[in-house]
């Protein structure tokens, strides 16, 4: 098969030089990037297409079912019928929005995610810059104490943090929920790693021109950090949006629940399936929209942390 592929490939035709129009830029295809010998045959491409389509259907099915069933109040009746996209009605959405605290939970989730993103980005970029470019007494000790916590599971620190918050009245408050999550060691590592690679000369030049340190940080360092800030910000946002256990133990009243905690509580209160799913769709839409816009950052965050970690 591979040999066939080799011989079938026509020799590159000599381009008619005069008539050749300017090459139209287009997305790279397999044909452009992979040498002919390694390109799959027609049968290989067909097989790959079939497998990919099957895998995609399996991946997407839960999302599809979530959406369609949320639009079918009155419980899923007979199986094949219930998945077909007709006889739809939005009444589960109005029911879950009216009867439950969904809008409040959405607000809580937004506050939890956005405040944490801003806080983590500010704190981690300042600390990362200092760890990467400044020399001061105790730097190594501090950095090693950050590193030492990598192996300790979140569940171990969670219990004493909860006790502490219970003692100082932080349970069931926004600040109690948010402040502990601002101490994000991974974010500092990532920042430090990134800032280390920035050239020192730029900072030196600015310093010689009489720039204050804060000025150097805000007008030179931060703009250079844009890509990593975007990546890290997306990641922290996502992590907080999906976080469950910490908001679960910190949000005791219904008013302080986040969406994940609220939807889990709907599930336990025997609310009709279509309403639970409507709540899930409402919680999923913002993430989906963000994912569509910032896919690049989502994926860079994953590979970046893996390559560096």
């Amino acid at each position: 098969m591979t040999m066939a592929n080799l011989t079938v490939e026509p020799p590159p035709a000599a381009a008619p030089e005069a008539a050749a129009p300017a090459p139209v830029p287009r997305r790279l295809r397999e044909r452009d990037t992979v040498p002919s010998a390694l390109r799959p045959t027609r049968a290989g491409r067909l097989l790959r297409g079939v497998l990919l389509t099957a895998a995609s259907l399996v991946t997407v099915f839960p999302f599809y079912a979530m959406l369609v069933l949320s639009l079918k109040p009155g419980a899923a009746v007979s199986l094949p019928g219930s998945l077909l996209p007709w006889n739809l009605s939005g009444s589960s959405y109005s029911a879950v929005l009216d009867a439950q605290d969904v809008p409040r939970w959405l607000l809580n989730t937004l506050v939890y995610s956005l405040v944490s993103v801003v806080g983590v980005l500010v704190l981690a970029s300042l600390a990362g810059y200092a760890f990467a470019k400044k020399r001061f007494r105790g730097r190594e000790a501090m950095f090693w104490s950050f590193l030492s916590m990598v192996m300790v599971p979140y569940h171990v620190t969670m219990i004493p943090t909860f006790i502490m918050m219970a003692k100082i009245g932080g349970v069931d408050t926004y600040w109690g929920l948010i402040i502990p999550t601002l101490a994000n060691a991974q974010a500092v590592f990532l920042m430090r790693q990134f800032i280390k690679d920035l050239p020192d000369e730029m900072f030196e030049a600015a310093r010689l021109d009489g720039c204050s340190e804060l000025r150097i940080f805000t007008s030179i360092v931060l703009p250079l950090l844009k890509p990593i800030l975007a990546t890290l910000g997306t990641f922290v946002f996502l992590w907080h949006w999906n976080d469950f256990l910490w908001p679960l133990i910190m949000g005791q009243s219904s008013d302080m629940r986040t969406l994940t905690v609220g939807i889990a509580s709907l599930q336990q209160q025997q609310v009709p399936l279509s309403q639970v799913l409507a709540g899930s769709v409402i919680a999923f839409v913002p993430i989906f929209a963000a994912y569509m816009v910032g896919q690049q950052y989502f994926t860079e965050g994953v590979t970046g942390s893996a390559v560096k970690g």
Partner: protein
Amino acid sequence: MAAVAERTTRPHNRRGPHARREARIGLLFVLPCFLLFLAFRFGPGIAGLVLGFTDYTVGDSTHFTGLANFQRMVHDPLFWSSLRVTVIYSVLAVPFTILASLGLALLTRRAFRGSRLFRSIFFLPVVTSLILASTVFIWIFSSKGPWSELMGLAGLPDQAWLTDSALVLPALAIVGIWSRCGYGMLILLARLQDVPRELEEAALMDGAGAFQRFRYIVAPQLRPAFFFLAVIETTNSFQIFDAVYVMTGGGPANASYSLVYQLYDAGFKYMDLGYASALGCVLFVLTVVVALVQRLVLGKEK
């Protein structure tokens, strides 16, 4: 540690006011983050491990009880059951997640029309909260759901997976694989970009088939990524909680009652925070063991 710090800082302090200013600024920039870290990660991390040796409950006075929590654990059938559930879940979920990741990575390896779309589809479950996904998986695995429908077509009795103690962990593992394989795919794709194309072409010229090329050229290059994934996915699966909380509540008959579920129950339902912390210590030890095994295996490689 202090010695290291002094060695790096002292020569610069001698340079005079500029270095002193730099040190002051550095400290100032680090301090907010470091104090938060001390208060909410480092301190609680140490405290969490120490609490495991106490009988801390809310309200009562606390005593240092040495190994009492761990002795209690040894005689606690629920602990052994939750440990077994956690390990079986990991054994079911981790290998298949990595295999599925590999399959997806190889299928979307080259840039072809639609390859980016497929990658985004496979990664979508990773960014979706397991709580949200679980609400629909409850239905998928229910006796009215598509799984039992498929079973029915195959002539098997319809079955609610989540209420059968033999099937509940496989069902949770399927959810785990579904939600995590896109992550593994991305990690492996990043590594696949580094496989030298010339090597593959040379192997092809020598008549190596697709499987041989994978076995001898591609797979060795992927080794570090496999180890990375094995560690990440194993520690991740040790911490299974979200899906259990929503889909099964630990049931049926504790068949999905995992270690972190027990930690949550002991700590925040029964307010037995000392015992919960001891369970946290076990989780910590498990995590360290996985990392050490990885270190040993990788060390042997070099």
